[in-house]
């Protein structure tokens, strides 16, 4: 990748410097943690045994003695030995190595210190985004950042007692306006994209609420999220709405820019042929967009699937029982995508044609 301007050079250099600085900080930030951190210096295998589960599957369990030095708190520099059972499949245990830093609470391992890895990984992402997208990449990053902050604060407000669905709707309006306006500037195109996004989202919300009320959530298995102490049906609806929002925005922006491009090239174009081209474009994008949601959502059930089937549960049971929430998320998102096509066509044509006639 060529570096074309001073601005790019400065940004890349500052990304690299910042990333080195934050990485070094995250390696040495043990003093910030309340929990004790142990740096592993030696691991010894004490015992190795083979266990068998009720369906006849064998698995090795290793008992290990982990030796390390505390790096923070009042025990700093003190040595410690911990006995730890590690399984081959690592379903609930982790495989530790010499040099790892682990959290320890009353002589038991809580987990790995992962902050350094997260920091490095996020910087790699930012660097790649900038190298390819340049200014556009930074803008993308800003949009993603703002949306994350909006959601974080929205959820805080919800926990203070504001109605979740109302809050989600306000959040959706805010993040739609901000994302679309930031990326495309404030103009007629953005305005009609915002309008069609919100219109589609409202229709989708009404539809989902109706289906939920009518079917009384029959067949939906909430065990995945029922550890929440708040009403999880509300959270569920809010979640599936937000999941569809990104896709809806994407579709409506694509359609709006295509239609406005057509009108710009030929202002006398008839509404009928506009509708026809709009449908052509939407056919191309619909299939792949639905697939994005399909794999993003449904694949997140693989680990539970493996665990369940290796425990002797049937596949059908899994599909109709464990995967239901992901299925709903995917279905609502896809309905959102397909629904947005006629809605944004309608809105854009109304918007541009009446404005053009004046």
């Amino acid at each position, binding site marked *: 990748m060529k570096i074309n301007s001073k601005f790019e050079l400065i940004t890349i250099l500052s990304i690299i410097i910042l990333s080195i600085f934050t990485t070094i900080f995250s390696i040495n930030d043990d003093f910030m943690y309340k929990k004790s951190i142990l740096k592993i210096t030696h691991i010894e295998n004490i015992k190795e045994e083979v266990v068998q*589960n009720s369906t006849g599957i064998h*698995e090795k369990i290793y008992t290990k003695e982990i030796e390390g030095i505390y790096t923070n708190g009042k025990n700093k520099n003190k040595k410690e030995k911990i006995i730890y059972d590690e399984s081959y*499949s*690592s*379903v609930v245990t*982790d*495989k530790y190595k010499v040099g790892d830093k682990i*959290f320890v609470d009353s002589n038991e391992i809580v*987990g*790995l210190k*992962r*902050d350094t*890895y*997260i920091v490095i*990984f996020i910087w790699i992402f930012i660097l*790649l985004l900038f190298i*390819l*997208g340049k200014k*556009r*990449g930074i*803008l993308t990053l800003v*949009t*993603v950042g703002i949306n994350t902050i909006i*959601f974080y604060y929205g959820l805080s407000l919800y926990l203070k007692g504001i109605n979740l669905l109302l809050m989600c709707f306000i959040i959706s309006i805010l993040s739609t306006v901000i994302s679309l306006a930031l*990326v495309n500037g404030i103009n007629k195109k953005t305005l009609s994209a915002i309008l069609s996004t919100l219109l589609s989202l409202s229709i989708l919300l009404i539809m989902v609420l109706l*289906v939920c009320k*009518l*079917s009384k959530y029959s067949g939906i298995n909430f065990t995945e999220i*029922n*550890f929440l*102490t*708040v009403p*999880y049906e509300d*959270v569920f609806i809010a*979640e599936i709405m*937000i*999941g569809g929002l990104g896709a809806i*925005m*994407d579709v409506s922006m694509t359609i709006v820019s295509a239609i406005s491009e057509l009108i710009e090239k030929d202002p006398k174009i008839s509404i009928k042929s506009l509708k026809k081209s709009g*449908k052509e474009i939407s*056919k191309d994008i*619909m*299939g*792949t967009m639905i*697939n*994005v*949601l*399909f794999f*993003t959502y449904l*694949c997140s059930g693989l*680990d539970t699937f*493996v*665990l369940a*089937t290796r425990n002797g549960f049937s596949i059908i049971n899994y599909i109709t029982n464990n995967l239901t929430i992901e299925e*709903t*998320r995917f*279905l609502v*998102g896809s*309905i959102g995508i*397909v629904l947005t096509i006629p809605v944004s066509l309608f809105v854009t044509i109304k918007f541009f044609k009446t404005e053009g006639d004046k």
Partner: protein
Amino acid sequence: MMNLILLIILLFLLIYTSGTQGIKVFISLCINFFLLITCFYIIVLGIDAKIVSILICFLIARVVLFFVNGENVKTTSSMISIVIVLILLLSSIFIVTKITRIAGFSEEAFEEINMFEYEVGLDFSNITVAMILIGLIGAIIDSSIAISSALHEVHINNKTLNKKELYNSGITIGKDILCTTMNTLLFAFISEFMTLIIWYKTSSYTILEIINSKLFVSEIIKILFSAIGCILVIPITSYVTANNLKKKEKI
């Protein structure tokens, strides 16, 4: 029942808005669902999940590209680029999951899985690699086909452009779609994250505890790999498509 109603609504809308193409999309979804479940099943049988997942990604890409969009220069170029990106990603996903130890379940999910026995005799780090890889295939296909078909249009409308110019316009188009793709991904992940964030907030986790927890880290790694895949696919598809379009012209 509720999902069945939603499925019927989806099918109706697909047929209403795009007719035969809608039915094609629906059939390809069914094929993909079948492929996904078969892939899950093969993994359960104990065959290396990394190899199974990359093969299934290849098949899925074939179904989405060639069945729905037809076989032509655009889709074959996309196919080649997707394979390149998948191979690049597979190795890095494998290394990252090994280093960050995100395989398996975190303590937040124990309630969901406590009815199962944990001794299953399969290495879950491979399964996590498969999950990340299959989870991002949809997004990569989406970006790749968007670029190759846009480049094809550019090529048809302006045949005088050379390979380098075509590649550059591919990058320009890529920048445009990058932001919206990131947004789609972000919202899909926020939707999965919401439960988690509410859980963290109600059970008073500190920020430091959150950024070290297995569940949070594995979600972040998933979203970042999807994003990195979408970024990588832009220059690769631009290059391959530009190359193929020019090669075809010579013959």
